């Protein structure tokens, strides 16, 4: 089996050249230097443009190359594995444009597509200094004329607000506000009257120091009525829908960063620590981190494919991806950091100080694009759907089959199928009981180790207990109890388990004979992954850790062959 998105990403990575070569545009050395000087990666972004990355932000319907979000995810992952700052700085254009693809008129979309093709940068301006994630409290407002809107107010902490030619602004178009009181305006900064806007100074941040994180203030800035994206009053709805897409794409950004972290850790370990005591296996913290990364990959793959295959469920899928993947990678980086010790952390002498940089950069992932609380709250608000779906075992069988079979062709993405609530709950989680039964059956037949049979039992119990507790949750309009957040967090872990089980079951035959077949044989990665998930879902139970040592050769092979740490083969441009 050839996993095509990885083929595309590998080709892309090869064209970018070896990141260890300081003469390449997109090298680790240059990224370290730009970070130190807090400078925008202009040349690197230009190189990415020349290789056509921005075209992958534009749907094929408008002449771009965005056909599959799975491909876009794979590309973003390889960019992030070199540098998260660059990935975030560049992908901003997708964030800014996504509303136009979803809700804009064909003419508006066509014009924006042409602009992006010519190198324009688009920015998404949602937040204001005083209101953070509380979008309904936003104050930036418009006065409406016959054929124009006049904009007044300020947006703050906006990616590429200064550099972007276009800013897609969420504005209060009805003074009374409310969920139908906001509209999106696609503002072409070049067409604004001089003096009617100013870009706010760049904000100094802990990580992604080179990125343009700034703001924009409007004073009687007049834009044509045609700047409205979609119907007036539908801005909030559109934003909440495109956030489902962008949150799903946070998965690959985190994964790429995690890949970089683990690669540095393996390198350091081979250079300086020698083999672990009493054997040739990699130290346990490395194999555990490897496992976590593979689990996060399973979640990310299922998430990206769900954009096409389970579109109506994306409100829960994207929240799960956004909570689970960045959190897992954040913990992975912290754990590797303490394993590596101060030498790697505190000095730039070792590999350009890349580890400390990615650690700082990655903190942004749990903060931006809807923080963890917002996403968990989004899940809590859908407990009714999730428990109903679990009770009825509702599964969109066709959609699920496509979402988790990596060889299946994805149907075109249909933005109009996005829903603010997932009526059906989550097919992935609701199919978990039957998938676990299948796994247990394989254990009985000795096709997989008996441990997996036991894990299946444990997981089934955890899933039932969790949904029972979720059903007991008393919905409340305002005072969401902290216990509900804990349930939602556990639900994301069960979601991750479901992604792992389904991916393993549905692809284990197809990967036979592929370069990563040994990872899949006997349920190796699945056993390790479920062990890690159960350790979180049921802490305090001692489980045999030998499975992590059995992953050691896979980890070291992928490292030595310059492959992405992945369930699927992906050769990168990487000297070892």
């Amino acid at each position, binding site marked *: 089996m050839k996993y095509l998105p990885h083929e595309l990403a590998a080709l892309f990575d090869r064209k970018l050249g070896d990141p260890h070569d300081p003469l390449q545009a997109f090298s680790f050395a240059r990224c370290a230097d730009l970070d130190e000087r807090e400078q925008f990666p202009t040349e690197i972004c230009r190189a990415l443009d020349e290789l056509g990355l921005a075209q992958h932000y534009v749907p094929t319907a408008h002449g771009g190359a965005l056909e599959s979000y799975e491909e876009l995810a794979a590309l973003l992952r390889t960019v992030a594995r070199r540098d998260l700052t660059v990935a975030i700085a560049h992908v901003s254009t997708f964030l800014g444009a996504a509303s136009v693809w979803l809700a804009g008129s064909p003419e508006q979309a066509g014009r924006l597509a042409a602009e992006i093709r010519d190198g324009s940068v688009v920015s998404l301006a949602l937040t204001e200094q*005083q*209101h953070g*994630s509380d979008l309904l409290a936003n104050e930036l407002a418009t006065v409406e004329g016959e054929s124009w809107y006049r904009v007044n107010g300020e947006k703050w902490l906006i990616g590429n607000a200064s550099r972007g030619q276009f800013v897609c602004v969420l504005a209060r178009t009805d003074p009374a506000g409310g969920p139908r009181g906001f509209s999106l305006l696609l503002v072409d900064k070049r067409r604004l009257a001089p003096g009617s806007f100013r870009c706010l100074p760049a904000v100094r941040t802990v990580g992604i120091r080179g990125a343009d994180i700034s703001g924009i203030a409007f004073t009687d800035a007049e834009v044509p009525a045609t700047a409205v994206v979609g119907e007036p009053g539908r801005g909030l709805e559109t934003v909440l829908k495109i956030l489902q897409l962008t949150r799903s794409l946070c998965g690959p950004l985190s994964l790429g960063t995690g890949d970089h972290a683990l690669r540095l850790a393996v390198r350091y370990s081979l250079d300086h620590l020698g083999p672990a005591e009493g054997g040739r296996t990699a130290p346990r913290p490395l194999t555990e981190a490897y496992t976590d990364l593979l689990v996060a990959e399973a979640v990310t793959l299922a998430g990206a494919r769900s954009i096409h295959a389970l579109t109506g469920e994306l409100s829960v899928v994207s929240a799960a991806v956004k909570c689970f993947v960045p959190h897992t990678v954040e913990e992975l980086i912290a754990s590797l950091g*303490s394993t590596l010790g101060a*030498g790697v*952390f*505190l000095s730039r002498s070792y590999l350009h100080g890349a580890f400390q940089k990615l650690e700082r950069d990655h903190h942004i992932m749990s903060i931006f694009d809807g923080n963890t*609380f917002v996403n968990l709250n989004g899940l809590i608000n859908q407990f009714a759907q999730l428990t109903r779906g679990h009770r009825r075992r509702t599964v969109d069988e066709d959609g699920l089959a496509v979402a988790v079979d990596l060889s299946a062709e994805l149907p075109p993405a249909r933005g109009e199928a996005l829903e603010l609530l997932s009526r059906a709950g989550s097919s992935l989680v609701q199919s978990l009981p039957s998938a676990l039964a299948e796994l247990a059956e394989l254990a009985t037949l000795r096709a997989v180790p008996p441990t997996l049979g036991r894990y299946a039992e444990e997981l089934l119990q955890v899933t039932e207990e969790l949904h029972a507790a979720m059903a007991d949750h008393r919905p409340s309009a305002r005072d969401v109890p902290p216990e509900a957040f804990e349930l939602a967090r556990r639900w994301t872990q069960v979601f991750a388990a479901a992604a792992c089980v389904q991916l393993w079951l549905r692809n284990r035959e197809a990967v036979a004979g592929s370069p990563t077949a040994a990872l899949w044989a006997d349920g190796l990665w699945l056993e390790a992954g479920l062990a890690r998930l159960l350790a979180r879902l049921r802490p*305090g139970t001692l489980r045999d850790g030998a499975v992590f040592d059995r992953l050691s050769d896979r980890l070291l092979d992928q490292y030595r062959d310059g492959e992405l740490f992945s369930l699927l083969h992906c050769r990168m441009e990487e000297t070892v």
Partner: protein
Amino acid sequence: MTAPMPARRLDRLDRLDALLGDPRTPEGPLGPETVVAADERGELPAAGIRALDAYGFNAELLPAALGGRFTRVDELAEAFRTVARRDLALATGYGLGSLTAALHVQRSGDHGRQAELAELLLAGGRVATAFTAPGPGLRAAPVGGQLLLSGAEQLVGDPAGADALLLPAALDRGRGHLLLPADPRLIASPPHSSTGLRGCRFAAVTADGLRVDPDRLVDPDGDGPARAAAVGRITGTVLGSALVGVLDTQLRTALGFAEERVLYGRPVTGLPSARALLVDAFLDLLIADCCTAVAARALHLRPGRAGLQHAVRQLVSGLVRDAVHQLSLLLGARSYLREGPHALFQKQSRDRTALATLHTGPAQPVRPITALTDRALFAAEPQLPELDLERLGRIADEPAEPAPGIDPELTAAHPELAALAVSLVERPDATGFAAAACLQLWWHGRPGHEGFRAEPLWIHAALHRLATRAGHRSTATRSGHDAALLDELRTRLAEGRTFDLAARPPAC
């Protein structure tokens, strides 16, 4: 012989607190803006250094046997915490190297070096030491009655600004440490542009065939690693206590933000999940405080239990790391900005991350630690025997006591608390120890204390917090204690009291 009772201890801390100034006020020597600005410049705040000089902080680091004031690790730990609350980099950069050197040289028994170091420190000098880093390190080879020093140490705390350096070196047999006066032939690299503890100006030190007298070697027997281990148990405990100070600041910043910030029509503290998050961080702080206090006392009372400090170090750094991460989610973008009214948060966060790598090292499996029974470990005003550096350096760990010793009187008075603590004792990490430490410190600490510390509110909540962390499904609903604990936090915030068990008021 016992170390003197800490009669003047509080006076000393008060004086230190007063000299360092109220951390809430911008005018003080260590106001948030001053601390953040110094960090941006990669320096320690000059006013903070002057305050520590004026206080004579170096004397706190120098063992009494050598003419300083250091007798008890618990006191030293509190002094570090007092500085770290304002600026972790200052505590580390000013004190850690000199403390490490002082302990090491005391342990060596080398009178010449002891006198030299005492003089240097009491005159306000500073000693730089090295931390574990990649690379082959230094080598000291005997040549014609002298030692020929070659190689490099990659991670030394501000070598250019130090008056002396204590550097490890490989010997023909074993490893030792050299105490060297500052010397231009010890070439310091420009400071690494590090991500945290920037003011500590970590740099590499290179020696290229530097000849030094053999009496510079403080471990001629090649037993340097054992001595370093003994010293590390003390410095690790002190730094654990400093981390409690960091969590104090982070919680203070986050609470201040949450009280002011209005989201969804009310202050963030109106959201039950935000209240729970703040209260959990408070409980983690109290638990970490109890653990470091007992670990510090155990250095005096149970020097043979090497595993204890190690386990507490892992537990406390984990507690503080997780709590700070949660608080960062509450602060949201404000936790990521190096400017604005909450910028101290990110500065202390980066310092914490950096310190964790300095003082954790490679993770090691933790043996189960059962509770300890000595009353003195938990007494309100314990008498502690003098520190025995020689025993602290023995690697072999004494076996743990077979059974957790919860005071029978306590068990009778609070059976549910005792049962909860006992249920945690078998955990394969330090959770059981933490539960026993909290519970017994509370129990024995009640006489002589009133109010919050003596009341059962926090200990109930803390034990449930530990149980939840250990994966026990909580039976108690938390709503009961959240409101009361948040009130306590608010009161302390308003009065400027510390969030640890001592609830120290700001110095006048």
